[in-house]
């Protein structure tokens, strides 16, 4: 009997695994005859499970909404859009596999995502080689578009397939530093990061500017993003008498970190970037994160009339999870791909080029000139593939909600 139950279990698991993998592989026939509609696929890559899934699901749903809207309004004549979303679990390796898979599917004309900068880094090359355009709604590490030496002023674009609708940390970190030092008059910082591309980069740009302003760094620490016990770090922060902690990292570790710093008896508030700007941060940290600050990309969606339409449509579509920090950006990223497809279709007498390689190449080229009024404001890209609409806001946790306190516009020139 025992052996049989074990056997049944094994069989069930195997069948389950097989059917799961079967879901992923579908043989697609691209293109149709002149009268029929061509179906093209827009890929989405984001962490759909795991700690960061709240943000990832928001990205997926918002892209889905964009695709549905485009199909409903017949945005591109003769073309139907479909979404294929893949889960990268916030891991660079998985992201790279997903990228390869999307490249291999010859219906895919563009990819939205990923969320994490280090995942983005691993996907770039795959898409670059295949000339497949990628628009990230959330990658903020500057080197993804401006090359590894951006800080020394040697900006160099590595992949002409990479675009993003979010602001970079090149602005986010220093803006937070200026705001805290000058406006809040907070002079003693404790810097903590999680050593990932995003977190360490953000903490770096922040520290740099904060020191130049005359701020004092009273301590630094690095944590493992998988840890949840930060009591020792909390005690260190409490003893350092820091005015605030700048945390370069994401909310799954950020929320318990902030809570445990408070529990250690410190009055320091925790400040971070867009990856702390999530409802989950407050749910996990509860009262202990009251007063914490986060900068996030863009102006508050409530101030945008286009965003109100988006919020209404999102609600009407009945998604179970909220659109979170990157919803508007994901919608715009997806819409940018749709607009690029539209431009290519218009250029080629109402249809897509015959080969998928040609289609992808032309869409990548068209992306550079895409311009439209999006959920998050005017959307267009500069010569590095970065958004030209560089806005960001500071949010404060007040009464269990992120409330916007300040919005900045970055304008080079």
């Amino acid at each position, binding site marked *: 009997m025992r052996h049989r139950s074990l056997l049944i279990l094994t069989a069930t698991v195997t069948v389950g695994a097989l059917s799961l993998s079967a879901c992923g592989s579908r043989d697609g026939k691209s293109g149709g*005859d*002149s*009268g029929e509609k061509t179906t093209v696929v827009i890929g989405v890559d984001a962490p759909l499970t795991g700690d960061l899934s709240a943000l990832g699901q928001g990205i997926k749903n918002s892209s889905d909404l964009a695709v549905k*809207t485009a199909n*409903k*309004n017949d*945005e591109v*004549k*003769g073309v139907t859009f479909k979404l294929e979303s893949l889960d990268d679990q916030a891991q660079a390796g998985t992201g790279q596999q997903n990228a390869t898979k999307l490249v291999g599917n010859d219906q895919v004309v563009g990819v939205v995502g990923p969320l994490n900068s280090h995942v983005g880094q691993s996907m770039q090359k795959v898409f670059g080689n295949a000339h497949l355009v990628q628009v990230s709604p959330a990658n903020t590490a500057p080197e993804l578009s401006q090359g590894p030496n951006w800080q020394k002023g040697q900006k160099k674009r590595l992949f002409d397939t990479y675009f993003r609708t979010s602001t970079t940390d090149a*602005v986010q970190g*220093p*803006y937070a*530093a*200026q*705001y805290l030092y*000058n*406006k809040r008059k907070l002079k003693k910082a404790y810097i903590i990061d999680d050593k990932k591309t995003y977190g360490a980069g953000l903490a770096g740009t922040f520290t*740099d*500017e904060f020191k*130049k*302003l*005359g701020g004092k760094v009273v301590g630094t620490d690095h944590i493992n993003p998988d840890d949840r016990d930060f009591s020792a770090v909390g005690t260190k922060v409490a003893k350092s008498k820091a005015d605030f902690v700048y945390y370069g990292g994401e909310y799954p570790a950020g929320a318990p970190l902030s809570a445990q710093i408070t529990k250690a008896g410190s009055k320091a508030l925790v400040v971070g970037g867009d990856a702390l700007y999530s409802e989950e941060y407050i749910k996990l940290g509860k009262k202990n994160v009251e007063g914490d600050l986060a900068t996030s990309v863009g*102006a508050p969606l409530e*101030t*945008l*009339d*286009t965003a*109100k*339409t988006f919020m*209404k*449509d999102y609600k009407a579509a009945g998604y179970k999870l909220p659109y979170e920090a990157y919803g508007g950006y994901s919608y715009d990223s997806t819409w940018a791909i749709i*607009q690029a497809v*539209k431009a290519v279709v*218009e250029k080629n*007498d*109402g249809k897509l080029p015959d080969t998928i390689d040609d289609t992808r190449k032309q869409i990548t080229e068209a992306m550079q000139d*895409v*311009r*439209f*009024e*999006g959920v998050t*404001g005017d959307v267009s890209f500069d010569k590095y593939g970065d958004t030209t609409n*560089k*806005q960001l806001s500071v949010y404060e946790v007040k009464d269990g909600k992120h409330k916007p306190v*300040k*919005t*900045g*516009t*970055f*304008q*080079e*020139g």
Partner: protein
Amino acid sequence: MGDILSGGGDRPGLSERWDALPRRGRQLLVALVGCALLAGAAVSVLPAGPGKSRPAHTARHKVPYPVHSTRIGFVRILDVDARNRSFRIELRAVTKDPVLVRRISQEYQALTMKLDPAQAVMVRPERAEPVWVRARVTSCRDLPVRARLPFLDITLRNARASQDLSFILGDRYARALDRVFRTVCGPSSRR
């Protein structure tokens, strides 16, 4: 519909169908297509502005918030007076809706700023408006040197709302400001 028909002319299916049409049918169709093209051109020209292809516009009648309609850029720093530790900044404002620039400051402890002349500046959508600011360094001790992203706090008001916004003016402003600080306070002001 017009662009699909005219654009799809080289497809075999369509050209065959075209040949099969009677003469009068063809004339009628050409006329119709012509009309449609004209109408299409008119529609695309009338609401000026590139690619407004967003679906479902509501609240069209409302003016957007200043944060979305107004851009302020840095032009130059001039009239540096080392004795008085003062200088003037020229900014340039462009906007989509009429907006009032009411107040400008930079939250540095050792720097005061005010509009020059002192009354609010009205910016209209038709043309870029210069905005002048007079700044004074009150103490050389607390001045940051080589900061990368100094920003101005600017209060803007339009028909929709009054907003207190930051304008980050970028690298050129940062370096210009840095140069002024060195001129005013001497090269070894700090560090």
